[in-house]
């Protein structure tokens, strides 16, 4: 299915591009520093993208950096996202966003030696699947102030994606020889990416711009809708065969405050570069283990990034960015590389 979608996009690219013109006064070829905080009335924007996240470091609860690569527990996430925006009127846009991601988190491999028995244990927690569907509205000031823009936004993630983990696929292989018993046990957990509850989001944006530069600040607060009834899987191993039993449990995702400050420089009409600072702070939330609620530690992550955008054709923009962590607590310290396209159309 992914291949079909990809081929469709590739096959469609020339048709989007053939209509290119050199006229930069068009809304569809509006320069980065001239774009308001919401898209224009009747403008349809389709933004597919791919994000590669490489997590070879992690911040612990004290803010110290742990080297996951050294422990061979580095992790990679592939995320494919799709965002669709539409300008209902000149100052009001609606957004729908969805993503699909997959990631495997390894634990260190353990060897247990006991008399003539050697047990080798590895553990992998896999996260795979669709995210919840985000729907949002953004509204900007209905009058123009020179070199200034302001917007507010509100939205919610609808819990449409699967959030209960699938049955684990553990395995065990034993081998007996003259020196004793060797057991190779692999724990493999299959998690999903859905949240299982509504996540409400409120935000605001502010923008200052000149002929060549723009500074944009965005802030969002995400609020969890309530506790989630889900399951965990318990397993028993008997003669290399695992049996599983699902156990009901509850969890509650925490709340998140995130912000970004982005500096855009319009080098030439069709090319802009940007630098940005991104922050995220999470608090609250808990998991229930054996009937006891265990609260989440507070977490935060600050990162800096650079990127560029190219107006390739009248309907097509390409952009790439790279973000590096600079500080954090209780959070993965990932290198994130994003490649995206933006297809823009006027429907009126």
């Amino acid at each position, binding site marked *: 299915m992914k*291949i079909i979608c*990809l081929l469709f996009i*590739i096959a469609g*690219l*020339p048709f989007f*591009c053939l209509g*290119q013109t050199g006229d930069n006064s068009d809304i569809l070829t509006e320069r980065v520093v001239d774009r308001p905080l919401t898209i224009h009335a009747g403008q349809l924007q389709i933004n597919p993208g791919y994000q*590669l996240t*490489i997590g*070879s470091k992690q911040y612990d609860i004290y803010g110290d950096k742990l080297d996951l*690569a*050294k*422990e*061979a*527990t*580095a*992790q*990679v996430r592939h995320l494919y996202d799709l965002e669709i925006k539409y300008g209902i009127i000149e100052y009001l846009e609606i957004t729908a966003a969805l993503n699909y991601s997959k990631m*495997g988190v*390894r634990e*260190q*491999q*353990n*060897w*247990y*030696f*006991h008399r003539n028995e050697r047990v*080798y244990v*590895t553990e*992998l927690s*896999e996260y795979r699947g669709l995210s919840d569907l985000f729907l949002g509205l953004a509204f900007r000031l209905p009058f123009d102030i020179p070199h200034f823009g302001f917007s507010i936004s509100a939205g919610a993630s609808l819990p449409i994606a699967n959030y209960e983990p699938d049955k684990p696929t553990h395995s065990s292989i034993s081998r007996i020889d003259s020196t004793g018993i060797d057991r190779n046990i*692999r724990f493999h957990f299959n998690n999903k990416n859905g949240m299982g509850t509504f996540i409400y989001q409120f935000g605001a944006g502010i923008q200052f711009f000149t002929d060549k530069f723009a500074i944009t600040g965005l802030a969002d607060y995400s609020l969890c809708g309530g506790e989630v009834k889900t399951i965990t899987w318990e397993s028993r191993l008997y003669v290399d065969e695992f049996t599983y039993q699902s156990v009901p449990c509850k969890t509650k995702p925490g709340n998140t405050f995130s912000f970004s400050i982005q500096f855009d420089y319009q080098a030439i009409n069709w090319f802009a570069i940007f630098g940005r600072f991104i922050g995220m702070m999470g608090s609250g939330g808990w998991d229930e283990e054996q009937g006891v609620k265990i609260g989440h530690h507070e977490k935060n992550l600050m990162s800096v990034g650079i990127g560029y955008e*190219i107006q*390739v*054709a009248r309907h*097509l923009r*390409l952009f790439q960015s790279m973000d590096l962590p600079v500080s954090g607590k209780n959070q993965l310290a990932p290198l994130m590389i994003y490649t995206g396209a933006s297809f823009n159309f006027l429907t009126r």
Partner: protein
Amino acid sequence: MMKFIYGSLALLLMSSLASGQTEQQVLPSELKQQTVIQEPVTLRKGFFRTSFAGAYTFIDKVFDENGDKGYILGTIGWERSWTYNISLQYGITDRLQVMLKPVFHNKKIFYSDVLHFGTTIETAYANVSGIGFGDLVLGLDYQILQETDTRPSIVARSFLTFPTGRKNPTAIKDYKDFKLPTGTGEFVLALELKTRKIIFPYSITFNVGYSYSFEGEKIFYPDYPEDEMIRFNTGNRLDLGGSFNFHLNDWIALQNQVVFFHWGSNKIFADPTETGFKSWVLSYQPTLNFQIRRFRLYEVVFIPVLGKYYPADPFYVLGLLYTF
């Protein structure tokens, strides 16, 4: 008399016809700015091109014996690798081109074991890395057929790999503390036929190739004594590929390549002889080319789609080339 009049009229008309003639002259500097879609499949005579590319990959997942993509668990751990290469190309004639490509590797393998002896716990970390120049590739391309309005071009390409890189592990302390080799320790001869047709702003290519690996000798197992050289023979490789490429605008081109590789079994002539598995991969390789005058910046992502006994992670390349 009539002949003279006709002759005079013809001469007069010739001058008027000739004055309407225009000749489009393309300067060499403009030819050096052609995009990957427009340029000939080999460099023009006297053109010199140099490029620098960096490639990054990691090994997180693998296609197993059933072709299923799964995470690597167990003793292999996690690996990341940077490779840099400089490519020097020169057009000897409009049809014949030579290429020289030295490669520099920087790779590291990570794994750790937590050892539980009753109540005593020890953690052992690997220290396995390799930095240095790899093997040197010499290439020769010849255009058998030059492209016209009606027929495609066909080019024969040949590559000879010299095992100039360090072929043996060094500084061996134990099986998880040594320096990785940066070369393969074998000569490889590769031949390829490639055809291309331009239907501007599109182009289509097909290629078929085969590479033959000569037998070599090197140290395979770092926990062996250092002088334990073992003969080996890497499996030969078959390549099949095709691409559909087009201009997004006058200076940005997108190449969409689908490539199939099949490797024969590797053989290690130890006692007993070890024969590896045959492996294959089908990959999609989009390449984005930005042509900025004589500079070309390109990004490639090698995305394994299907395969067997082959790493399933993407491979990223960022390169810059300049035509003199």
